[in-house]
């Protein structure tokens, strides 16, 4: 399957992935931030860390609780976004843009096939309200 570079894919755990060559950028969706509330702490993975599909990769905490952020794809971490570590509130203001969580070097492009398109994700959210 050919993935459009600009097209985001979504996981059932409310992560988004956007692909650029064999590098993917991963973050959490606006819907996820709305469920979490005010984000006050973020932990992102170090470069070089190997993550599995659906494995725990980062942590996000709101005033209410701590949640794991899973990687929707396997690969090697290239970079964690330090700017959201320093200013976690930025995740609330721009979750699907500047406040990505990590960049990852893809191991297996076909893993993207199991993820949802924006339309599918919106339908999923509507059918599974928190």
């Amino acid at each position, binding site marked *: 399957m050919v993935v459009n570079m600009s097209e985001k894919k979504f996981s059932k755990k409310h992560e988004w992935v956007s692909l650029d060559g064999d590098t993917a950028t991963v973050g959490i969706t606006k819907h996820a931030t709305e469920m979490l*509330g*005010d984000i*006050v*702490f973020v*932990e992102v993975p170090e470069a070089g860390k190997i993550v599995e599909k659906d494995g725990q990769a980062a*942590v996000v*905490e*709101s*005033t*209410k*609780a*701590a949640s794991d952020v899973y990687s929707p794809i396997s690969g090697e971490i290239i970079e964690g976004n330090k700017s959201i*570590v320093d200013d*976690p509130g930025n995740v609330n203001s721009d979750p699907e843009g500047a406040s990505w969580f990590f960049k990852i070097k893809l191991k297996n492009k076909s893993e993207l096939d199991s993820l949802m398109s924006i339309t599918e994700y919106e339908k999923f959210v509507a059918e599974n309200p928190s």
Partner: protein
Amino acid sequence: MEVQKTTLYNYHKNLGAKFVPFAGYEMPIQYKEGIVKEHISTRSYAGFFDVSHMGQFFLEGDDTLINALEKIIPADLKSLKLNHSKYSFLLNENGGIIDDLIITKTLKGFCIILNAACKNNDVKEISKFLSKDHKYFMNSDLSLIALQGPKSVEILEKLTPGVSNLKFMTGANFNFEGKNLYITRSGYTGEDGFEISIPNQKVEKLIQFLIDNKVNPVGLGARDTLRLEAGLCLYGHDLNQEINPIEANLKWAIAKRRREEGGFNGWEKIKELLTSGSNKKRVGILPEGRVIARENTKIFSEQGEEIGVITSGTFGPSVKAPVAMGYVNSNFSKIGTKIQLEVRGKKHEAKVSELPFFKKSYVK
């Protein structure tokens, strides 16, 4: 048991509340603004909280009622003046805390505000000491609204003139549209403010007045961050039946006369601890950096020995840093002691801190 709702449930819904089950009630955890904004606006202006899930328990009787209550409550009820309130507890036979509470002297006896999750059991425990000459009832025809923050007094004075004369931990009756409100100057945020006991049929009118005066609704989420910054305990987390007031560093809440004379549940244990000191102690904890140490986080000494556990932890929006409290081995309870917190398998530096984290501004 069926989930209960306060009188304001639909009102909260219209205000955009997100609900959570809490102590058998559907309660707002936050509104549209979110926890941080609700917290900040309470500290900078004022916020209101629906705390009608809490028990408003009334007792009536002669002087024998005082003697009966003093067997389970270590406050000096004999010298408690009319309309004055004290923070105290119900104690079990080992001195463990059955519940923490605010008790106020009324004309006919006492009013006790009880935690929602404990209130039914509390009545059972209290009634063990009562006789047929004592009347008691939980008044569910009343709602309870907390108005907290520096502007509270100015705003409430417009509705019920005279509230500005109340001192911290005292109360009085006020008239609102022909109904009686019992208002105390107290709260659970570290701010100046009031708790308003009001008939259910008038509570929406009170809330509308507060909203017209730009007071925002505040949910349980910000109630928790506010009370933790103020160093106040949350029952079921920082306090429970296994913990006594000495360990909880709440010795001040046991009246001097009672400490000397005793005659209440658990006094022998407490007397012993007053001399020897307890093995563990509740302390404030400031993690270094941004990591949040939540309830059940293990606490270690610098040498790596396990010395305690966190009982409440969050991010303090006014402190602008993570804050926590917990119990440590008393040898490590000195302010400034360096400790380590194990969060997600990693040790993080922290130190024992003074409480409150955020300075109070009560009107005394």
